[in-house]
């Protein structure tokens, strides 16, 4: 006789619920993840922006050379570079390398690697890894060219010489005194991390998909030399745990980070992020708008602070000074008098007051106010005043417009050659506070203008369809050359083609000066006068209308962690999601 196997409805529901919970848990569970790390040992941060969705993009990609990959919050804490550059104190920070030197003609670089470094699977780090990383990119660049820096490596690198286990010589096809900084020094979102040869070298550099799929999370996470390993990674959350066997600690190079665990969750909305940091669920967030930041500082003075404390600008200067840029191939902006008039129509102080409640500095140059670039602000001060780069004078602007042959129609709109002047003012979402104000100032001045940040706006800008746009100059940080080079005539492309820098301005004298600067080392005394000459042309021609410095306003909660970078101790830019984030994690102390 068979025993009865019937179950009641209640029993069925109970069993189904338990099974469902088990399946759900098993999907996300990771046997390697220790569930018991205390809050006081955990740093929690909202990492990269996600466009409102509560998920990270490309959450399982460990190849730092994948274009478009956001390294923030993940692999940039696992891999390490040869050097970091910390911009606020203007400091090169030797890391996997101890030093490097150029040959006399700057066509070769000898890199001396640190001894005692090992990958987190125990394999020693050395010259082979550095050579492999550069050579992989070079080979990729010679073929498929689908990795970051690959085409540059293919163009620039002639030979890689393994001098010994810890010394590499990189021979270039042409002299370039900036090559090491450009490609092998990590700062902001730029520069190369070094890959483990013993993991990646079994794959053809052209075989992108399997190249990435190779390095899944293993017992120690993706293989890296960093102080952290990735132990759990889902679209909704990334968990990094401290490696107590990190080479930095075992060799005495640096103390272990004080946090045992770092958790990154995506930044969804400003409101939600503010709520999370105010109630201590997270320790820092991507950013806060000025009104939100002021509110946080006023309501929670005991636990919320910023890089500049509780004072404006409530953050630090970023490498992205804001300007109004013109498309010089458009008829309406080909006359310098019109560009100058547009600049005079901009009431920059009013824009700063409206957009940032005054917590931002207007800027006459397209440079961030970083230590090495400050001399140029001094040099150009008189020129900026003389050319009225930052002045607001609508009468003078009207006169210039009339002089240039423009006239207002019955609706008060400026016309040139029978066409209304203006067009959509494109801008990235990071300028959403200031763009509508600038657009309104231009509309009142008589231009047909509407702020526009719809998807696809970048195509309008880069492909030369846009007439004007608000933008940042993400280029120079310690050397004036990079920003000047953006305006070199070599970047000019006809409308319909992607221009690397879309201003499409041509000035042979200026481009010649940039070529001369490029040939000199950044600290050559001959650089400064050449830069001053180039900047004078740039300002005189009113190539763009500089507006302001750009800031990262990041609130920090001091309940669990202290030692956040600040004006008194600016050991690293506090943009923890940048590729220099490791330095910030190492600098934080338990509260």
């Amino acid at each position, binding site marked *: 006789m068979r025993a009865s196997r019937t179950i009641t409805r209640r029993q069925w529901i109970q069993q189904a619920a338990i099974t469902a919970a088990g399946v759900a848990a098993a999907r996300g569970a990771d046997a390697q993840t220790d*569930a018991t790390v205390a809050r006081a040992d955990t740093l929690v941060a909202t990492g990269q922006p996600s466009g409102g969705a509560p998920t990270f993009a490309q959450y399982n990609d460990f190849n730092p050379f994948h274009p478009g990959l956001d390294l923030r919050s993940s692999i940039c804490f696992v891999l390490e570079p040869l050097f970091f550059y910390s911009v606020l104190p203007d400091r090169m920070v030797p890391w996997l390398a101890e030093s490097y030197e150029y040959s006399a003609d700057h066509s070769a670089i000898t890199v001396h690697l640190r001894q005692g470094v090992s990958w987190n699977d125990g394999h020693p780090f050395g010259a082979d890894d550095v050579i492999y990383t550069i050579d992989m990119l070079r080979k990729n660049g010679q073929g498929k060219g689908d990795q970051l820096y690959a085409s540059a490596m293919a163009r620039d690198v002639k030979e890689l010489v393994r001098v010994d286990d810890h010394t590499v010589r990189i021979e270039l096809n042409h002299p370039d005194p900036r090559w090491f900084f450009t490609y092998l020094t990590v700062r902001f979102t730029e520069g190369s991390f070094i890959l483990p040869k013993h993991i990646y070298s079994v794959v053809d550099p052209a075989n992108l998909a399997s190249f990435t799929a190779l390095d899944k999370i293993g017992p120690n996470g993706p293989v890296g030399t960093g102080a952290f390993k990735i132990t759990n990674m889902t679209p909704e959350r990334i968990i990094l745990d401290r490696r107590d066997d990190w080479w930095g600690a075992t060799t005495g190079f640096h103390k272990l980070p004080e946090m045992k665990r770092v958790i990154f969750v995506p930044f969804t909305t400003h409101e939600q992020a503010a709520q999370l940091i105010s109630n201590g669920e997270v320790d820092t967030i991507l950013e806060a708008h000025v009104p939100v930041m002021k509110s946080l500082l006023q309501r929670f003075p005991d636990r919320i602070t910023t890089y500049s404390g509780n004072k404006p600008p409530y953050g630090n200067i970023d490498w992205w000074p804001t300007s109004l840029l013109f498309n010089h191939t458009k008829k309406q902006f080909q006359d310098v008098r019109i560009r100058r008039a547009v600049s005079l129509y901009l009431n920059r102080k009013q824009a700063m007051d409206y957009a940032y409640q005054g917590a931002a500095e207007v800027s006459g140059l397209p440079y961030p106010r970083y230590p090495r670039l400050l001399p140029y602000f001094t040099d150009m001060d008189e020129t900026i005043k003389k050319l009225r780069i930052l002045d607001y004078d609508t009468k003078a602007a009207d006169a210039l417009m009339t002089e240039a042959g423009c006239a207002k129609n019955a609706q008060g709109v400026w016309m040139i050659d029978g066409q209304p002047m203006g067009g959509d003012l494109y801008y990235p979402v990071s300028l959403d506070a200031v763009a509508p104000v600038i657009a309104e100032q231009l509309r009142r001045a008589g231009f047909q203008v509407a702020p526009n940040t719809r998807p696809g706006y970048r195509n309008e800008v880069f492909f030369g369809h846009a007439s004007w746009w608000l933008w940042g100059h993400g280029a120079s940080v310690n050397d004036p050359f990079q920003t000047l080079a953006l305006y070199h005539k070599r970047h000019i492309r006809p409308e319909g083609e992607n221009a690397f820098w879309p201003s499409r301005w041509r000035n042979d004298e200026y481009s010649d000066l940039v070529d001369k600067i490029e040939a000199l080392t950044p600290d050559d005394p001959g650089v400064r006068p050449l830069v001053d000459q180039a900047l004078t042309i740039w300002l005189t021609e009113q190539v763009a209308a500089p507006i302001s410095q750009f800031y990262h306003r990041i609130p920090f909660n001091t309940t669990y962690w202290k030692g956040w970078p600040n004006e008194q101790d600016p050991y690293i830019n506090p943009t923890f999601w940048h590729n220099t984030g490791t330095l910030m994690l190492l600098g934080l102390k338990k509260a």
Partner: protein
Amino acid sequence: MRTGALAALRPLARRFAMFVAVIWAASTLNFFVPRLAPRNPIEEKLLAQQEMGGTTVDIQSLVRAYNAEFGLDRPLWRQYLTYINDLAHFDLGYSIADYPTRVAAVIGRAMPWTIGLLTTTTLLAFAIGSVLGALTVWSDAPRLFRAIVPLFMIFSAVPFYLIGLALIYVFANLLQWLPLGGGMGIRTMPTLTFAFALEIFKHSILPACSILIASVGVWALAMRGMMVTVVAEDFMTFAEALGLTSRRRFTQYALRNALLPQVTLLALSLGHVLSGSILVELVFGYPGVGQQLFRAIQNLDYFVIYGIVLVLVTAIALAMLVVDLVYPLLDPRLRRLGTAR
């Protein structure tokens, strides 16, 4: 005998053919509609990198390489043939935004959250709404029900996400009884424990409530309309004349007959479950299919859009097929109609 069996199978085959045709037509539409936008997702993604700054990336060659990688450099008709061929092999391809994650993995990861939240809320809203709607026209029902249902009907005119925002403000912000959002706590580790299940449940309360509050009224309204017709039928008068209890007349006669159109609606709603409730999932940061679809549209991630819409269309078509097949079992009149033919 054999001919009879074939004849019996013919309607089934016809319905299945219709099912396949619906999926093909929807997939074709699904392929071409996103392509109407004059945008290239690869280019946009890489231009975003170009915009961020740096002077070291050759974007143009990268765009070329990745266009080739995803087959976007080929003529549209060839892309379409590849797409249909891949679908026939159940290959949804790679996500552009989350490369090298496969689309199936993107959907598979998000689906349990959406199914868990929306299946429960849809069934609950169906059950509560249908019963409340029926009770509003049942003369023996307490007056309280007649007061509650109009309230739900008012809420049904309010979008889910607005109710969601109000719930967040009251219960997560002011009272701090429930979490702000997400599928689970930031520091919570998935474990096979009651505490973890409770955590998941707590995070689902507010999104579930916002959907329930907004949708119960819709079900109630539809049910009320059917009940008005049913209670006036002769068989209801006959049942009363037989002396059957009010409860029996309500459940066995009125409710059962009025429920049939609701079942069709339920099948459609369950099919829609897989598309997620985009705005609710976004407002609550709930990691379901809806927010994946939102992100895919934002990034013009063709392959994820294709994948999610295909799953959605298949689910709805399947639900309709099942309803088509099951309906005769629920309504004996249809069985008789089928036999008479």
